[in-house]
């Protein structure tokens, strides 16, 4: 699903550089990326999502060479193929839960907001356990509920990949397990590939594979 070769990336100013010779993620794989802060985990997600562009090397995601796409094409690719779940949920505070879930449909032309999509959003919210909170605002939700909304938002367009950037970093241990269950259940149901950046080593056994980013070597779970 993801194939990266001879990748080189430098942030402007020269403070950070990333070089990856080879990095592969299979379709439907649940991969955890670990490593200390500043080792380039989030940069990898941004490169693979086409949010930032590499200087050298190739990035193929879902059989598409990301570095060859224009800005608009990368955006379209991202919206149609990748769902994002962030550590701080990144919900829009002035929208209610329902509007947050369908937000990607309102900010892009490639996704069409139809009554059918609204019904799907309601069904997904009910499945994830926030069906009774659709009209509440983000600030009125608990941390766990906020992350459920973020997961709904990421999954609704039916992405081929889900990128979770410290998705459980702000949750208590009880919620961590539940959110991860939800995420795993839903990606498993649709055969979605999961690429998760995490600092939480307790969660690693649940992934198919773990990549330590600092040493950049693949680790098999115990």
């Amino acid at each position, binding site marked *: 699903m993801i194939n990266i070769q001879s990748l080189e990336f430098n942030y402007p100013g020269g403070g950070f550089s990333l070089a990856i010779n080879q990095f592969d993620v299979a379709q439907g794989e649940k991969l955890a990326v670990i490593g200390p802060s500043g080792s380039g985990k989030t940069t990898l997600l941004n490169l693979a999502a086409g949010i930032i562009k590499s200087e050298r090397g190739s990035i193929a995601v879902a059989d598409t060479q990301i570095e060859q796409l224009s800005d608009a094409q990368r*955006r*379209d690719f991202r919206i149609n193929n990748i769902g*994002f779940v962030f550590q701080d949920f990144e919900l829009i505070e002035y929208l209610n839960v329902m509007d947050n879930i369908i937000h990607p449909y309102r900010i892009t032309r490639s996704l069409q907001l139809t009554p059918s999509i609204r019904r799907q959003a309601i069904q997904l919210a009910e499945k994830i356990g926030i069906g009774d909170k659709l009209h509440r*605002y983000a600030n009125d939700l608990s941390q766990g509920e906020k992350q459920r909304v973020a997961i709904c938002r990421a999954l609704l367009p039916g992405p081929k990949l889900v990128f979770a950037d410290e998705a459980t970093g702000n949750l208590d241990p009880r919620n961590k397990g539940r959110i991860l269950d939800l995420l795993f259940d839903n990606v498993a149901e649709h055969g979605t590939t999961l690429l998760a950046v995490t600092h939480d080593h307790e969660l690693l056994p649940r992934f198919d594979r773990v990549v330590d980013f600092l040493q950049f070597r693949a680790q098999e779970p115990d």
Partner: protein
Amino acid sequence: MHALFLAWQYLVFNRFRSLTMVACITVIAVLPLSLEVLLDESERQLLARAQSTPLLLGAKGSALDLVMNTLYFDDEVPELISMLAVDELLATDLAEPVPLYTRFNARGFPIVGTTLDYFEFRALGMAQGRQMALLGEAVLGASVAESLGLKPGDTLLSSPETVFDLAGIYPLNMKIVGVLERSHTPDDLAVFTDVRTTWVIEGMGHGHQDVSQVTDETLIMQRTESGVVASPKLFQYNEITPDNIDSFHFHGDAREYPLTAVIVIPDDTKSSTILRGRYLEEAKLNQIVLPEKVIDGLLQNIFRIKNVLDAVIVLVGSATLLALVLVFALSLRLRQRELQTIFKLGCSRATIAYLLAAEIFIIGLVAGALCASLLYVVDGYSSDLVRTLFIN
């Protein structure tokens, strides 16, 4: 795209900030536009009244005071002239004079002493009752009747000139016999009475007990063969009724009775020119003025002041707009994370700009609608506002 929906949600969620911005923009726009509307209306009203008054005769002095008092019943009373001026005008056979004495007030409204010719000249019809016919009768302008809740059959007491002037002008209770049709001019805000009634208010005419028939000798100071000198204790009437109207009389030479101005209605343009020429003489104590010219001069001054006001408003408006831009820029910094999130979700930078533009558009639209509504209200009340704020 759902830019307007998202922008609306954002503005409603941050309603205090949004309303503040709307209020600022509305005030910036409404102030100069309202001023423009009011000045246009004041120009229209002032000029219309002035243009419909051919000439004014008054004492030499401030032409503006003379015009403002005569046309708009302004509180500033010009130097007085006498009825002799009317006689002189009549003697020229060039114009018809309409005397005016507008020195007194009744419950805050000017009392205009004049003759029936005034109503004909101003084309004022009766809405209720009849025209004044007897001494002590008054007809009310439409706004006076509405404001004081008076109708024919009621009475209206003139205000004393000064509370401490015990020997001076006593209030006269006038009988209201009619209410004028609304004319949307200063006449709506005046109490009209016969000029002789205003002289009674002045104290030049009065009514009292018949001194030849009083039995209380303390009321008589001196009896002679030719007359009787009454004591100040003698009861004087403060209301003219059918029972006491015969006792009312005037003292002194009628030609010396005071007026504030005379509206001069010349027979034709030539008569107007001749009259104006005659009153240019140095020896003349009175002057004839062309109200339109005086008001035109006044308007020039008003518009000079307006230009200064406009400049001030532009400066204040620019400063406020800059502050709004700053508020918007700071809010963008606060929203940096939100904007990055929607960018990561697949929103283009152009669409983000479009979303922000939609917010500005809605704020502008609401402010514009509010501004238009306020201007509509100001325009609707401009006639009354101008009379209340500027003319009176």
